[in-house]
């Protein structure tokens, strides 16, 4: 069996003793968009955050089973979490630019990786902003505070910030949930472009969004992975009744 980019096997996650994820086994392919859908509290965000060990920040989280990225178990004792997160970047639900200028926001990642050459930084910043489709909007005011941007721009800035570190995988936790339709459309367009270079995993509440942009879709319910297949199949001919109920809105 060929292992995909991300691969979990019988993974369990507990929040201070309480089971939050149950027996998750999934294979996420490289350079594709994979969407996680499911009702609130079903564990999809928790699962996403365990792919770059952001759950380590929460007290009382315990993980069992295997979480493999490039065939390496990331919960191994010898894993360097800092380097893991360089490889697996993350964009959060709420846009969270630093209280710095636009330029500094993007340059922060490369800088902590030891790049201090001004020209090189300029280039990285420009490329990242162009990749995130925000360059034209901010190129004349790179010195302005990032907090002065609109919500949609801030989110694209956060994506650019993540891209500037040059990760292999980009995890996105409901990146467009707080945005208006226009900004959402821009972000979606961006995600589709990005899959040429990056493996993208996205959590979304918006099923149309999942249908539009993803190649594969996983449906989570109550901490379990109910169904995982090609997006087209999930949305047209789901195998499980629960999936169908959720997708058609007949849930609960």
């Amino acid at each position, binding site marked *: 069996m060929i292992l995909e980019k991300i691969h979990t096997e019988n993974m369990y996650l507990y929040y201070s003793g309480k089971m939050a994820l149950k027996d998750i086994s999934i294979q996420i392919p490289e350079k594709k968009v994979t969407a996680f859908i499911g009702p609130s509290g079903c564990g999809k965000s928790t699962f996403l955050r365990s792919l*770059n060990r*952001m759950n380590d*920040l929460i*007290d009382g989280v315990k993980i069992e089973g295997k979480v493999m990225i490039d065939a390496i178990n990331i919960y191994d004792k010898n894993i360097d979490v*800092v*380097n893991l*997160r*360089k*490889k697996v*970047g*993350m964009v*959060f639900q*709420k846009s*969270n*630019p*630093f*209280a*710095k*200028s*636009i*330029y*500094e926001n993007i340059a*922060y*990642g490369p*800088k*902590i*990786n030891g790049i201090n050459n001004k020209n090189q930084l300029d280039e990285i910043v420009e490329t990242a902003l162009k990749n995130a489709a925000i360059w034209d909007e901010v190129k004349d*005011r790179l*010195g*302005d*505070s*990032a*907090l*002065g941007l609109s919500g949609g721009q801030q989110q694209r800035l*956060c994506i650019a*910030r*993540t891209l500037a*570190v040059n990760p292999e995988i980009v995890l996105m936790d409901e990146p467009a949930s707080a945005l208006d339709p226009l900004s959402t459309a821009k972000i979606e367009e961006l995600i589709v472009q990005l899959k040429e270079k990056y493996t993208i995993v996205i959590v979304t509440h918006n099923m149309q969004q999942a249908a539009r942009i993803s190649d594969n879709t996983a449906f989570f319910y109550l901490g379990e992975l109910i169904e995982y297949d090609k997006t087209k199949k999930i949305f047209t001919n789901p195998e499980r009744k629960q999936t169908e109920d959720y997708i058609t809105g007949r849930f609960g």
Partner: protein
Amino acid sequence: MGRKKNKGKSSNYSDSESHDSGLIDITRKKFRLGDYVAEKVIKGVAFLSITIIVLIFTFVFREAFPIFNSSNGEKKEAAVQTVKDSQETYGSVTDQTPVAQTQETYGSVVDTSAKEGVQETYGEVTDKQQVQEQYGVQTSQDQDTISASKSTYTVNAGSGTDDNRSAIKTLITKDWVPVSDKPRYGILALIIGTFKITLISMLFAAPLAILAALYTAVFATKKMKEIIKPTIELLAGFPSVVIGFFALMVLATFLQNFFHYETRLNSFVGGIAMGIAAIPIIFTITEDALTAVPKSFYEASLALGASKWQTAFFVILPAATPGIFAAILLGIGRVFGETMIALMATGNAALMTLNPFDSVRTLAATIGAEMAEVVFGDTHYNVLFLIGSMLFIFTFVINAIAEFYVKGKLMKRIQGK
């Protein structure tokens, strides 16, 4: 009764049943006594406290005012010839009177007959042992000296104008010799001393307190934080006299043994001691500011592959800059006005040097030491109030700089326009 009615009304609303009492009457303004009284009391208390602050300001400035008023006032003949002579010849020692021949060590009148011709300014002491013995002690005086000084005070109490006029000329000199036949109120040394000691204490306290706060806010475990924070916060209320005592007895000796400087009590010792007093304040405010930085910054930085300390230094610390500046300002305010530690641990000699290992006299300590013994209405009295006003003004200026410069330009540089 009214409340009962209201209740009936609100339930009425929901199930839309009509009762006899009808709708709530909103056309008539109802007088609510409780609300009215509470509002007036709060207003009164607020005004009272604001008035008190303004009154303190006014009082201090008013008492300091005569010094400026008299400088262009009418000249008055000095009652005693000797006094006038010594005033006119200020700055150069002449032989006109016995008094003028001696430059006094601070606060004491020296036996002029014994040391005639010996010029000693405090701080550049040739014979150290002697001065230490004389310090604060009134030795036997010549008859002339006694009469001269007596007459000086007569003049001072009677009409301060002439005396004031010469006194104000001495304000921007470096000699602080307020109790003398020809008093000199040079406050430059005091100002420089105060700033010097503030600088030393901040250089000592700010990094320590900020790093401690950073550790507590970012790195410490929850349990550790629960222990550290309250403990240091308790220290904020530590009586400064105890810190002063500690500095005087223990710290001074320890630091002298370590750095091998000459004067035991100096601005370095005082600065460190005041820093100890300021650390809890800076720590507490800084820690609050750091904790208030959104957790999303922390997560975002870690998700970019930053290590914990990189996140702490390059994201959390810059984001908390306004709070940290507020903390440092509060610390400066504390040190600036600190009196007891200054009195106990700085040596209290008004020397105008930049050497941190020389004794120093601060503005606040000068008021603290001399206000109780000064003649009411005397120039010295006025000058002490002038110093008080300056403390006010400096604090005001520091806060103003912080408000306009830091929040304006500095924040822009750190956080973008």
